[in-house]
């Protein structure tokens, strides 16, 4: 057995992170269980359109209860740490602002960058832990030849979460463990059963943790109402790609690129949102073929396997979590901006989402699509 370490495990109350805690404990390490309290699920409960009761989600009392039970079962100290203020500032507010500007945000990446692998690492270090382990499906390893920490795809491709982890810095990766990187989900459930964890059969969480039922529009309405802020008027025109006005819409935040339903116009052929112009509040619609584009530009670049992009390189690029990485050329076109040129046009490239660059198994880096 390697030297026992003191490891803080980020426990969400789900199967994956519970299995991580149980596994590392069984390996003989000193484990400290931590749950981040990020959002008060009852905060917007009862606001118009929001459910009265919210359970069974990230940061819900049920999940904290489950995490606490697991900690008690495997015999580790366990604490809930409060990061609600940072979460609201660094995740919830940007999430709302992005939608109101006509982009489609990914709060999970922001949470990873600003909370799980930033604040939690600080807390872990302060309480004497050498590193933080999480239940993400990804692999991290040190590459001697490059002298860099690498983020790699997991054994279970279907559960691959590297898309959400592209923002991790070398410093963060050096203190992070992803013990499930080599396992499949059924193996993880089996491990949880063998460890006697009562939640081995608990369903996976799918949606954005702070948005009940996945209805982000209602969330934005309720959030702004609660903060006493007026919902900005983002209503405007519905136009075609050639600039013809064909109708009106109730607000750009109700739309996302590729959306077909809810446009409020009837035409002979199916219409899709192909672009959202935040500045003039226009939603541009067109046919399916208008959704395809061969290039994208992305800013706020984070590189992992390389320290710089000195010349264009061949990569495959994922433009959303559920997207098959597509072959492309990646090149730097400004200090903090890259251009991705795909071999084949890609459907619904969406500003606000991330473009994550892969060299086979290895995450080269990523950036935010503009």
């Amino acid at each position, binding site marked *: 057995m390697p030297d026992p370490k003191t490891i803080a495990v980020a426990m969400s109350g789900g199967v994956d992170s519970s299995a991580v805690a149980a596994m590392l404990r069984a390996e003989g390490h000193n484990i*400290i269980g931590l*749950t981040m*309290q990020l959002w*008060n699920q009852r905060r917007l409960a009862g606001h118009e359109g929001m459910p009265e009761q919210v359970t069974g989600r990230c*940061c819900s*009392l049920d999940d*904290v209860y489950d995490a*606490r039970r697991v900690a008690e079962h495997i015999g580790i*100290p366990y*604490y*809930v*740490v*409060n990061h*609600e203020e940072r979460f609201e500032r660094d995740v919830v507010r940007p999430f709302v602002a992005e939608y109101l500007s006509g982009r489609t945000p990914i709060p999970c990446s922001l949470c990873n960058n600003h909370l799980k692998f930033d604040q939690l690492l*600080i*807390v872990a*270090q*302060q*309480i*004497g832990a050498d590193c933080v382990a999480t239940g993400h499906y990804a692999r991290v390893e040190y590459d001697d030849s490059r002298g860099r920490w690498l983020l790699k795809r997991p054994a279970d491709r279907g559960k691959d979460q590297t898309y959400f982890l592209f923002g991790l810095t070398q410093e963060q990766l050096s203190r992070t463990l992803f013990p499930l990187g080599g396992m499949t989900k059924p193996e993880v459930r089996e491990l949880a059963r063998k460890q006697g964890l009562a939640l081995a059969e608990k369903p996976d969480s799918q949606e954005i943790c702070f948005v009940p039922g996945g209805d982000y529009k209602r969330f934005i309405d309720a959030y702004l109402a609660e903060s006493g802020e007026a919902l900005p008027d983002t209503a405007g025109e519905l136009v075609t790609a050639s600039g013809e006005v064909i109708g009106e819409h109730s607000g750009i935040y109700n739309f996302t690129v590729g959306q077909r339903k809810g446009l409020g116009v009837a035409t002979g052929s199916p219409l899709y949102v192909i672009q959202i112009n935040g500045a003039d509040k226009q939603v541009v619609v067109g046919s399916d073929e208008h959704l395809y584009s061969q290039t994208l530009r992305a800013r706020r670049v984070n590189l992992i396997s390389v320290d710089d992009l000195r010349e264009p390189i061949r990569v495959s690029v994922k433009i959303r979590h559920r997207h098959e990485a597509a072959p492309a050329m990646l090149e730097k076109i400004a200090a903090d901006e890259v251009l991705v040129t795909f071999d084949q046009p890609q459907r619904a490239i969406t500003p606000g989402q991330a473009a994550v660059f892969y060299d086979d198994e290895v995450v080269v880096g990523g950036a935010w699509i503009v």
Partner: protein
Amino acid sequence: MLRIYLDNNATTPVLPEVLEAMRPYFGEHFGNASSIHHHGQQTRAAVERARDSVASLLGCRPAEIVFTSGGTEGDNLAIAGLTSPGDHIITSSIEHHAVLLSCKHLEENGCEVTYVPVDGRGLVDPDDVHRALRPNTKLISIMLANNETGVLQPVEEIGKIAAEAEVCFHTDAVQAAGKIRLDVKQIGCDALSISGHKMHAPQGVGALYVRKGTHLQPLFFGGRHERSRRAGTENVPGIVALGKAAELAMQGFERGDDKKMSALRDRLQQGILAQVEEAGLNGQDAPRVPNTTNIYFDHIEGESMVISLDLKGLAVSTGAACSSGAIEPSHVLLAMGMRADRARASIRFSLGKQNTEEDIDIALALVPETVARLRELSPTCRKIAIGS
């Protein structure tokens, strides 16, 4: 691991004598105190002996004691039981949530509530209470000792204001009972709540003093227990324990235990402040109960401090735990005008009768080294070090 417990304002261990006193009431003396037979008579006698003891502790008549399930019930019963919709209530911004949220609830149901502020020392100004009086003021509820800072409020002056205005005065004495001598007549209150587990009796028992002649509407309806003021079969073992804890507290005052406690607390406080820079006392220059000290350590997160110390075997606390167990910045420290980061960097140390000089020695070794470590790893502290 050797564990030192310095969080006695959260709860206290049951003293061995208290445990001994209550033990027979789980077994051989199991009767319902309302029953007319031998078994009931035995437990009735025990309940009434306990009532005598608690009455002595508070300087009131036994008939003025209502046994409750604890401090929260006592506060709820007093506040809801002494007011009706349309009444005005005066309370303070640093009350325990049992008082604050009771008032908030009544506010939503037709009462008016004034929350008087505190100064930087954590003290309510009696003049503020006086100025807040209205023709429909029915109740003043101001705590005796604050749970987080230990600061003692000017309850006698407030009692006089209440008497003059012919307004009921309730005081939450949960953090004072057993720590300082109490006399309801001297305080001039009409109601006073205490909790067993803050004074070395078990959790789940407490008492509310209600001055004779004060009309109290019950919260619970059912049997005619506690002179129809609190329905529900008496928690006999708990009540016996509370009676015993009250006796032990009174004996302690005779022996000067409170002075010893305050000397021990002062040694802890001075020892920490002598060793740690950029730290200070919250509630400085205000009278305090002898067991509590609340200290801020700039550039740390109280949460990390509590966890780090717990992992080394020292139990202390910071802020208030919310329902998930996460810590929120203390509303008491914020009400004292403290910056949120300093409120989050504040730690409460609270002693109990079981604590020894050795406990303090260990705490004095652990606290400075932990603060130093946290500061070394603190992002704000690093920035300051680089900047200077």
